[in-house]
């Protein structure tokens, strides 16, 4: 253990290192203030910039001033700077382009993808540090690897690997490239994988350091990747944002393991901050859906025997475009309840046009936003903000429900699960207990929908069969366009 002792102690005397440590303290402060500012609407944007500045500072100073104590006692700075800068430039260019080009609707996938990159980065670091650590311990004559460094490397590898594989699966699912696999068997497979991974960590640490352990580490990596896949595979539907948020905090923990390994305070604080705030955010999201995190992970949600009782016998009533336009134009209060379907059809701008048009006719138009509308909490607010909808027009679920009785017409656009009465009155429904927007309490409800297909959670929706509900079938964008021109011609 003597090597580690010197690793963290003697370096304090180098001037370069002091400058570096000061930059890390500044970076940590910027991360904390950035996160703090990110949680308030007025300061959020500058908060993001502050955190980015902290990151830039930490990266620059690491390249310039980082020194590692070598085995012979000398200090060595960062080599291969040309290659590092090249990688930085490539990564920046690709990341910048991807982030600028992605449609606002594809945002959740993008976050998942970037998260996976971070996880892979953490796993790669561990993979490369493991042989080095082995050599160091072997020369020191150690007979096992029971050290903090080994724990950090192995946990970083495991969590980073799970986060990478899981994020890729989450990305594929949100991008509709991968379907769900829902079999109870996966639950047991997951438990077995988790147990195996933890057992392997312990086993590897008790082994004597030597070259032949590398095979074991590759096996461990493979298992972590597999676990990442089987972890996310059965989770589907409305639970996807929760998973992304959870994987996000995983990557934070993986990054902090790297910080522990290198005695690097910027990585340590940055990683743990994200790990803990990400976990809280995940729990907040679960609360919004009235479910426990464990419930989400084990994956009781979604598909299967969800269509309880309400078979296809019932009929729906359609409404014509002209009837809809008259109904809307002569209402006093209209509430628009948007869902992911609106975003997919890119109809948020038309939505705003409809709002202005009705507003000019003296109709009061507001939006009722379910906390998990879209595919991430707050996703819908981002999309509507993109379409220049005023902030104060957006009502949160509770306020919308309180005013529902005074609302003449509710237009549900591409939303399904968040307006499903089964959440309140069908205890056998998978979404039972989830707070929903009670659109059925309004005087009229118009549901715009592409077809009678089930929502993202694959559950039958009785709202469509209710007496006050009228359906307006068709692509959300095309229908909105027609509706807007119809109202203009009135």
């Amino acid at each position: 253990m003597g090597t580690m002792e010197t690793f963290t102690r003697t370096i304090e005397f180098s001037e370069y290192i002091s400058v570096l440590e000061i930059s890390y303290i500044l970076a940590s402060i910027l991360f904390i203030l950035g996160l703090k500012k990110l949680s308030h609407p007025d300061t959020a944007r500058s908060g993001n910039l502050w955190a980015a500045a902290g990151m830039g500072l930490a990266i620059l100073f690491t390249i310039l001033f980082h020194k590692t104590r070598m085995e012979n006692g000398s200090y060595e700075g960062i080599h291969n700077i040309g290659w590092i800068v090249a990688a930085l430039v490539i990564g920046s260019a690709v990341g910048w382009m991807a982030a600028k080009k992605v449609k606002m609707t594809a945002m959740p996938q993008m976050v998942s993808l970037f998260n996976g990159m971070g996880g892979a980065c953490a796993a790669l670091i561990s993979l490369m540090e493991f042989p080095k650590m082995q050599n160091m311990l072997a020369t020191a004559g150690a007979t096992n690897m029971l050290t903090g460094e080994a724990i950090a490397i192995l946990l970083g590898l495991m969590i980073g690997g799970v986060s990478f594989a899981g994020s890729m699966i989450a990305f594929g699912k949100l991008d509709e490239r991968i379907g769900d696999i829902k079999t109870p068997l996966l639950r047991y497979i997951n438990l077995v994988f988790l147990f195996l991974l933890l057992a392997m960590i312990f086993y590897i640490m008790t082994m004597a350091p030597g070259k032949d352990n590398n095979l074991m580490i590759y096996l461990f990596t493979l298992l972590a990747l597999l676990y990442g896949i089987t972890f996310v595979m059965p989770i589907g539907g409305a639970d996807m944002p929760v998973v992304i948020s959870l994987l996000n905090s995983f990557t934070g923990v993986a990054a902090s393991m790297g910080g522990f390994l290198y005695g690097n305070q910027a990585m340590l604080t940055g990683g743990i901050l994200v790990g803990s705030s990400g976990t809280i955010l995940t729990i907040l999201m679960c609360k919004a859906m009235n479910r426990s995190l464990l419930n989400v992970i084990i994956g009781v949600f979604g598909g299967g025997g969800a269509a309880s009782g309400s078979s296809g016998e019932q009929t729906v009533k359609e409404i014509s475009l002209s009837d809809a336009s008259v109904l809307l134009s002569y209402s006093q209060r209209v509430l628009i309840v948007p869902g992911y379907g609106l975003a997919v059809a890119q109809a948020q701008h038309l939505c705003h046009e409809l709002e202005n048009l009705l507003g000019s006719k003296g109709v009061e138009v507001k939006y009722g936003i379910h906390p998990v509308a879209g595919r991430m909490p707050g996703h819908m607010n981002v999309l509507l903000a993109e379409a220049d909808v005023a902030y104060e027009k957006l009502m949160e679920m509770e306020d919308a429900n309180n005013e529902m009785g005074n609302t003449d017409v509710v237009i549900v656009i591409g939303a399904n699960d968040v307006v499903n009465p089964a959440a309140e009155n069908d205890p056998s429904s998978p979404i039972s207990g989830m707070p929903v927007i009670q659109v059925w309490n309004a005087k009229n409800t118009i549901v715009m929908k592409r077809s009678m297909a089930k929502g993202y959670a694959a559950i039958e929706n009785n709202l469509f069969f209710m007496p006050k509900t009228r359906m307006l079938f068709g692509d959300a964008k095309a229908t909105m366009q027609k509706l807007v021109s119809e109202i203009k011609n009135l």
Partner: protein
Amino acid sequence: MSEVLKFFMEYREAIFIIILSIFLGIEVISHVPSVLHTPLMSGANAIHGVVIIGAIIVMGHAGNVLSMILGFIAVILGTLNVVGGFVVTDRMLEMFSKKKKQK
């Protein structure tokens, strides 16, 4: 038992930082309005890109071709996480602030 105590003494600073940071992380975001959940998640996502520092350190001491290649990839992946994360977050938040100015 003495092994555990020794472990604690050896890593006490890191353990302190970890524990304090956990509470700080919880405290800092606990009053966030749901509107900001997505940008906050995205911003936090960019911050854990700090793992890139580890990638730079490994790359900076890479001796053979294999570790050069892996390190190069690691730095690229980390940069993607950092730059992509911050730019995407900025794009989301830009829309909120545009709204404010028009009023």
